[in-house]
């Protein structure tokens, strides 16, 4: 049968971000796919190199609206790694609380959208109503619904108002029964079982080959999570479990995210109960020359930031690697061979975030690609050699 190509996007009703998919189909079956991004590229790395270390946190926050804690968390850890310093205990706890409330709202957001992709709009509306409660918690704690502006290198910008804590706890306890109901409704629904089980399977080997991260990896039985593997913040001081399932299909990814929501609620509650007193900020003035890396387990997987400082008040180089950058290529493994009707939910299953992932390619006027993969590898090798020479390394 002749193959046909289905273009999806760039602006399509499925996702709120623009991206362009081309599905090559043979009858009903997807035989090949390609994705083209770049509609969201804003040149954040260069912008951040124009700002001072303190200002850059605000730019970093706006890499992605859903991960407006994860990126600053990784960034501040990278800056602190340059110096190096340990932030005060209270700041660690505050950071952890904000990061986990973000994980709750991000997982709920995905769950709602997944319902929407399946045409199950009841779940979409139900979950997003629940998510508003968590956004209220964020607003009470930080003053903002999103883009919390609370991180800074060396600590946090604002302290919690302890009078608000009872209200926060009440709100968090208030969502647990609804999450319980949601869990039952989703995990016991025969329709969802029929639609989600055994489709879009990503095997353990494929996870390792593609270096997939976060819930995408954990749903396939690969236990990796920065919070456990290299603990930071308050993650090593509270008791929580890493959720790992074995099948790697879309259903398992749902399960992982629903159960992680409970773990996050647990972490937030413990952290609030054990919140230590003391300073929240180290008031770092100067960043010495050097390099630093910082990682944080964002809701979608490990976010990684690299900072090189040359002793001025701006980063000389800032590199961002978001989890979707690693998870996106797994589409090739999951979507090919499935039918078109399953393609949407499989594409959504990794919880893609294209704003974080945006990269750019330089082309000449005729549209010819000037830098392909091999060119970039060559440039990178040349740069490494040059840096080694400059640093006097063999």
């Amino acid at each position, binding site marked *: 049968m002749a193959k046909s190509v289905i273009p999806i996007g*760039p*602006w*399509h*009703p499925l996702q*709120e*971000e*623009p991206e362009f998919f081309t599905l090559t189909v043979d009858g009903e079956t997807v035989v090949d796919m390609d994705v083209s991004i*770049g*509609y*969201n*590229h*804003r*040149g954040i790395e*260069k*912008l951040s190199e*124009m700002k001072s270390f303190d200002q850059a946190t*605000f*730019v970093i926050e*706006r*890499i*992605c*609206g*859903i991960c*407006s804690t994860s990126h600053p968390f990784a960034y501040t850890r990278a800056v602190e790694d340059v110096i190096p310093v340990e932030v005060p205990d209270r700041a660690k706890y505050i950071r952890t609380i904000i990061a986990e409330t973000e994980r709750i709202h991000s997982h709920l*957001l995905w769950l*709602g959208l997944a319902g929407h992709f399946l045409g199950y709009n009841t779940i*979409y*509306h*139900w979950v*997003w*109503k629940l998510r*508003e409660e968590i956004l209220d918690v964020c607003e009470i704690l930080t003053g903002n*619904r*999103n*883009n919390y502006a609370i991180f800074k290198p060396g600590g946090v910008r604002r302290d919690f108002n302890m009078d608000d804590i009872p209200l926060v706890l009440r709100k968090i306890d208030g969502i647990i029964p609804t999450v319980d109901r949601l869990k039952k409704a989703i995990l016991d629904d025969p329709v969802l079982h029929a639609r989600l089980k055994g489709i879009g399977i990503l095997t353990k080997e494929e996870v390792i080959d593609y270096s997939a991260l976060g819930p995408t990896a954990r749903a396939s039985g690969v236990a990796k999570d920065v919070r456990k593997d290299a603990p930071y913040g308050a993650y090593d001081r509270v008791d929580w479990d890493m959720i790992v399932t074995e099948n790697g299909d879309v259903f398992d990814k749902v399960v992982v995210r629903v159960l992680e929501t409970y773990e996050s609620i647990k972490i937030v509650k413990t952290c609030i109960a054990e919140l230590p007193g003391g300073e929240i900020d180290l008031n770092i003035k100067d960043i010495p020359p050097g390099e630093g890396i910082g990682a944080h387990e964002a809701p979608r997987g490990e976010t990684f930031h690299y900072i090189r400082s040359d002793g001025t008040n701006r980063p000389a180089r800032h590199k961002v690697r978001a989890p979707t950058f690693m998870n996106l290529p797994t589409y090739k493994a999951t979507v090919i061979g499935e039918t078109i009707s399953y393609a949407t939910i499989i594409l959504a299953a990794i919880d893609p*975030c294209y*704003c974080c992932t945006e990269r*750019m390619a330089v082309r000449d006027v005729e549209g010819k690609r000037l830098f392909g993969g091999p060119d970039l590898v060559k440039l990178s090798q040349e740069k490494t050699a040059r840096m080694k020479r400059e640093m006097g390394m063999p």
Partner: protein
Amino acid sequence: MSFAVNAMLKSPWVFHLSTGSCNNCDIEILDCLTPRFDIERFGMLLVGSIKHADVLLVTGSCNRKSAGRLKTLYEQAPQPCVVVAIGECSLSRGLFIHSYNCPVPLDKIIPVSVYIPGCPPKPEAIIGGVVKLIQKVKGT
């Protein structure tokens, strides 16, 4: 007031377009549709194609890849079509004003009727903006 405008004001259908945003504004728009804010009670409905829409909600800083396509899309829209710029990015490019990939603000590309500031604007602000738009068109 023409029949078309009158009918549109009863139930303005919106199409949402992100042109290089951080997602937050887009999520706040989706939030407006969900039970707490529920703009459908005002007859507003999010539609999947520009050809069905009366109102174009634009977010983001119009980067080089999106800008041309945005113009094409606007030209495909049935008139009258009002453009609402949502968020600091689409008003003035906000934080991204010095970026190499965001050369011009939105209102240099297509005509904009309503500006809703905020980074991101709260859903209440978005609803407020659209209500003001309706009042403006009605002339009350």
